């Protein structure tokens, strides 16, 4: 398992469109991904789960990937979260 903690860069946090794009990246990877903010962890393939975390700009989140290609997927997701998709 590979995991990393980072601050979310999108100006409006992980709402709506960026959340949908993030979930799409997760489902396309075919890996098991967990997204954690504070005490709560959700299946990152669930758009409802991801938006329910209410992630705002600058919030610290932890991404954990389980699977054959965990490192590459983790890199892609970390790059995604470090980019401002509302810019």
């Amino acid at each position: 398992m590979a995991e990393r903690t980072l601050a979310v860069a999108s100006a409006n946090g992980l709402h709506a469109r960026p959340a949908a794009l993030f979930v799409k990246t997760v489902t396309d990877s075919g890996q098991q991904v967990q997204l954690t903010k504070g005490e709560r962890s959700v299946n990152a393939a669930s758009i409802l789960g991801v938006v329910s975390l209410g992630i705002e700009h600058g919030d610290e989140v932890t991404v954990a990937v389980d699977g054959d290609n965990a490192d590459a997927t983790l890199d892609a997701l970390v790059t995604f979260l470090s980019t401002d998709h509302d810019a």
Partner: protein
Amino acid sequence: MVTTELIRGVGIGRGTAVGPVLRMPDPVPDPADARRERSAEDEQARATEALAATSAQLRARGEAAGGTAAEVLDALAMMADDPALAADVTHRIADGSTAEYAIHAAMASFRDMLAGMGGYLGERAGDLDDVARRAIAYLMGLSEPGVPRSDTPFILVARDLAPADTATLDLDSVLALVTTDGGPTSHTAILAREKGITAVVGATGAAELVDGDQVLVDAENGTVERDPDQERVDLALQRTAALSAIRAASTGPGRLADGHAVPLLANIGSIDSAREAAARGAEGVGLFRTEVLFLGAEKAPSVDDQADTYRAVFAEFPDQKVVVRVLDAGADKPLAFLTDQGEENPALGRRGLRALQAHEQVLRDQLTALAKAAAASDAHVQVMAPMVSTPEEAEYFRALAHELGVPTAGVMVEVPSAAILADHLVPHADFVSIGTNDLTQYVFAADRLLGTVAHLQDPWHPAVLRLIEAVGRAGAANGVPVGICGEAAADPSLAIVLVGLGATTLSMSSTSIADVRAELSQVTLDDARRLAALAVSAPSAEAARHAVADART
């Protein structure tokens, strides 16, 4: 000889249209919370299939639509595919739910969560209901909910359209609208009037129509005809062409065939609608609704903020009349700082001028802001009070407006008592303006927003016309102008009757001005009075309509 059946309703506008019927599916019912009779495995398989089918449906629609619509529909498809939702559904089925109820309840719990988050996500919470309804419709074997789509233009037949339906309606493919419920003030009617779509509303008999039926929709006569003769179709299309020719030829101020002037004014509620009205040739504004500027406000905007907004609207109408209605809060448009909470019957509660008298500072501020904006503009600004019931209230309002620097102050006549006592009330007003929508609602004691009593919401009814006649007579006797500012003025035939009853100006949605102008130009004042006398003495709204239509052919 082909037998044709005529379905009757209330026409909106004057157009005709011919085409195939597409029905709006009835709303999907909420599933009952019943124990399942199938095995958990079977219910699970049904739920999985329904959600997958819903997701595929939404993606297919997205691909067809393209652009932003595709993005929205893709996001909905992701919700149908969502693993957290699927897990919740599985859990509920294991506990004994049916697939229908499990999907309904799981979506509802996510919807409440999103709604609780507020902001953009809160606003999207309703999308989940849409996804759930689609999946449930699939499980129940019902048609896909929502406005039907078709590549070929069609005539949409529905019970009534909700505001959400009208938002997704592709107007380019809709030839005409026909509803079985709802009257001339329903959402469908308002949409049709705004967009200039041919429509017949409240046509109960249209419930019999099925997809693919060829129908002729004739808004002028308020009829829908199944399998019409080619001859009748040609006749209707010719008449529409003749009407649009008259309409194209009529420009300039509103006047009758004998030159009698009837200024045609616009009803507006915002700076945008003010610009539209000016562009469509309105000769001023007969009703500027100011509630819209206040909606959602915790307290009234300051005098200066209000004055800025009013000035922007007045600037669109140099040298023309702008009649501003002071705040009409209450009933269907409550305002936090004016409306009492928990009235059992808000349409009969402390609304309109009653609420303003109880919070006089709000009224004083608004009149002060209006006087200030009027002084800095070229428009002829007048004010009027809503929901006036007695001569004393009219006297109170005019005195206050004059004191605060607005020289022309009138009252709306929408409460029957004001019309019945018109001879005593009119002398206390600089002008009166009849709000036919509320007047009709109060004359019939029939809620104008309630579909089940929509058949009583008809301004053609002689019970309403007789009150208008009394006000017109009192206006003429006292030299006080009498305006009309309800949907009634937008109905071209009724507009003639209203002028015959003594209306001196007509105010309406600006999209209707061209039609009304064309119609008025066809009759003299004597004609209008004769037609009005026929309508007033008829026993019913339908009889009044027919009496006028027959006398004109």
